[in-house]
C-alpha cells in the first residue's frame, strides 16, 4: 500500500478543503480525479507534509504525514501543476540542483540529471535556459526534476495540461513506462479522463473533500447485463425496428445504438449482422458496452 489516509480534515479558514477523507492508495499507477476545487491539490499537499491536517492522519510510504514531512519529500517526486523553475539556470543545472536539494551528492546529481533529461526527451535542449522552453518542454523538465532523485512515489499534478497531441502521447508513454515494472508508484491527478484511462489501473474520485469512488478502472467500467454498442454508417430506423421486433431493447443516440438481447455473444452478433444485411444498414462498430470513465466520474461527483 503506497499511502493510507484516515479521515483527513484540512481547513483554509472557514472553508473545509478535506472533510475527514479516508483512502487507501494501492501500488502501481493511480488516477486521482475530481472537479475543480474538490480538494485534489490540497490532498497532494497534505500527503507531502506541506499542510498540517486539522484532523485525522495517514502514512505515505510508511512515513507519518504529520511529523515526517521532510523524509516523505525525499522519497517522493512532485510534478507541480503550475510552471516552476529556478531562474537563471539551464536545464542540466536546474535538474542537478533539484537532485542536490533532494540530498544527492553534487557530482552524482549532475550525472543523474543528464540521464533523466535524456530519458524525458530533453536530451538536445539540455543546455538551453528553461525560460526559453515551450509549454511541452516545461512539462517534461518538471517531470525530470521530480524523477532525478529516484523517488519511489511520483505525484503528477495535471501532467498533460497544455501539451499538444504528440507531446501528450509522449508524456503518457513516459508515465506508463515509469509506473510499470520500474518500482515507481505514480499518482496522476488530472482532468483529462481518457489520459488517466490510458495510463492508470486504479482510480480515486474526490468530490467536496471526500472520496466518493475508488477502485480498479476495469471493474468500475463494467455495465451489468453486458449490452452491445453498435455504430452504424448512417441512421437506419428500419434496423432499430427490426431489432426491437426480435425482442431487443434498443437505446439510440445518434449513430450509436445500445442493444440488450438475450443469447450468447456469438448468437447476438450473428443476429445483428443478419438484421443489418436485411435492412441495408452498414455496421461499422460492434463492442461490448462499457461505462466511460467520464460516466463513472459523473456518478461519483453527483453522489
Amino acid at each position: 500500500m503506497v499511502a493510507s489516509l484516515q479521515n483527513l480534515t484540512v481547513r483554509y479558514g472557514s472553508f473545509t478543503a478535506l472533510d475527514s477523507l479516508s483512502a487507501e492508495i494501492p501500488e502501481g499507477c493511480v488516477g486521482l480525479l475530481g472537479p475543480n476545487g474538490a480538494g485534489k491539490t490540497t490532498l497532494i499537499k497534505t500527503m507531502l507534509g506541506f499542510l498540517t491536517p486539522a484532523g485525522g492522519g495517514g502514512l505515505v510510504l510508511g512515513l507519518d504525514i504529520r511529523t515526517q514531512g521532510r523524509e516523505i519529500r525525499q522519497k517522493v517526486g512532485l510534478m507541480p501543476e503550475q510552471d516552476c523553475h529556478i531562474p537563471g539556470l539551464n536545464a542540466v543545472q536546474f535538474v542537478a540542483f533539484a537532485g542536490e536539494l533532494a540530498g544527492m551528492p553534487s557530482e552524482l546529481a549532475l550525472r543523474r540529471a543528464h540521464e533523466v533529461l535524456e530519458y524525458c526527451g530533453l536530451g538536445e535542449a539540455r543546455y538551453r535556459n528553461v525560460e526559453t522552453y515551450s509549454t511541452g518542454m516545461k512539462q517534461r523538465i518538471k517531470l525530470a526534476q521530480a524523477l532525478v532523485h529516484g523517488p519511489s512515489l511520483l505525484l503528477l499534478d495535471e501532467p498533460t495540461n497544455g501539451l499538444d497531441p504528440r507531446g501528450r502521447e509522449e508524456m503518457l508513454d513516459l508515465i506508463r513506462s515509469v509506473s510499470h515494472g520500474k518500482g515507481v508508484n505514480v499518482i496522476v491527478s488530472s482532468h483529462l479522463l481518457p489520459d488517466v484511462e490510458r495510463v492508470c489501473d486504479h482510480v480515486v474520485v474526490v468530490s467536496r473533500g471526500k472520496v466518493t469512488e475508488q477502485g480498479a478502472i476495469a471493474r468500475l467500467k463494467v455495465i451489468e447485463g453486458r449490452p452491445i454498442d453498435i455504430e452504424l454508417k448512417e441512421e437506419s430506423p428500419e434496423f432499430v425496428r427490426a431489432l426491437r421486433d426480435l425482442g431487443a431493447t434498443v437505446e439510440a443516440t445518434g449513430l450509436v445504438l445500445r442493444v440488450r438481447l438475450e443469447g450468447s455473444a456469438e448468437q447476438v452478433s450473428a443476429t445483428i449482422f443478419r438484421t443489418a444485411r436485411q435492412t441495408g444498414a452498414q455496421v461499422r462498430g460492434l463492442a461490448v458496452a462499457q461505462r466511460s470513465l467520464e460516466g463513472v466520474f459523473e456518478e461519483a461527483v453527483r453522489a
Partner: protein
Amino acid sequence: MPESGLIADLSYRGYDGPLLPPTHRWWVIARMGVRQAFRKRAYWVVTALSAWYYLVMMAVLFFFERAAQSAPGARGEAGFEAFIGRIVWKDQFLHGFGFAQLLYLIAALMLGAGAIANDNRSKALLVILSKPCDKRDYLAGKWMGVFLPLLTMMLIPPLVFFVYGALSYRDYGFLDNPWFFPKFLIVLVLGAAVHTSLVIGISSLFDQGRLAGASYAGIYFLTNFFTQLMVFAWLDSQVFLWGGARGGAGQSPFAEYVDRLYYVSIDGLLIGLCKAILGTDGSPQFGMPSPIRPVPAPPLLATLLVALALCAAGVAVAWSRIRAVEVVR
C-alpha cells in the same frame, strides 16, 4: 571487443546511490547562489572597481617614493617622510571602505535584487519545497547565497592592500598596531550582513528583480541624498567656525545633531560603523592636508544596534513574505 553482444536497456532506472540526510539543505541553496555569483563577469568587474581607492593610494605612495629617491639630497627624502608621517594607516582602510560604498550597493543589487523576486515570479519555491527543504532552509540559503559573495567581494581589495602595506611599509609603522585589520574584517562582515538583509527583504516584496533593485537603489539614494544635505551642513558649520562669509547670529537648533544625522543613511551607517569599530574619526584622504575637520565617529553601541536592527528587519520582512506554498483552492 566485449565478447557477449549486449543491447543496453536505456529505459528509466531508479537511483540507488547515496542520499544525504534530509537536513541542512540551506547549504545547497547557498552554494548555488555563490556559484551563480562567481559565474557573473560583472561581479569580478565590480570587485576590481571597488578597489580603486586602494589602487590610487598604492600609486600615490609608489610615485612619492620614486620622486623622493630621485630628488637631490635630503630634501626629497624629508618631503616623503613628512608625507608618510601624515598618513594614518587604518584610516586608509576607512577611506577605501567609504569610497567603495556605491560599488557595494551595485554588487548587492546584482547579487540580491533578484534573489527572491525572480523566485517569486518563476514559483521556484514549488520546486524547492517539494524537496526535503522548508522555509528556514530557503531563507537561510538565499541569505548566505548573497552574503558570501558580497563578503568575498568586500574582502579582496583590502586584503591585497594590507599585504602590500605589510610588505613594503612595515618600517613606516604599517604593522605597529596590527589589531586594526581584524576589526576591519568585522566591519566588512557587518556591512555585508546589512546590505544582504536589506536587499533580500526588499527582493521578497516584488516578483521582478528589476523592480526590487530599483526600490533598494531608490531607498539608498534617497537616504544618501539626505546625508549629502548633512555634508554641506557640516561644511557650512565649518566655514562658519572658520570665519567664513556668512557671519550671521545664532546657530541653527540642529547644529550639534549634524554629526549624528550625517550617518542617517545606509552608506552613512556603514561608514559610521567602520569609524566606530576602528576607533578613528578619519583623516584627510590621500594624505592631502585639508582644513575641514572630519565628522566625528558615532557611538559604537548605538550604530551596532541600528545595524543589527536593520538586519533583523530585512530578514523578518523576507520571512513574512515567503509563503510556504500558494494555497490555491
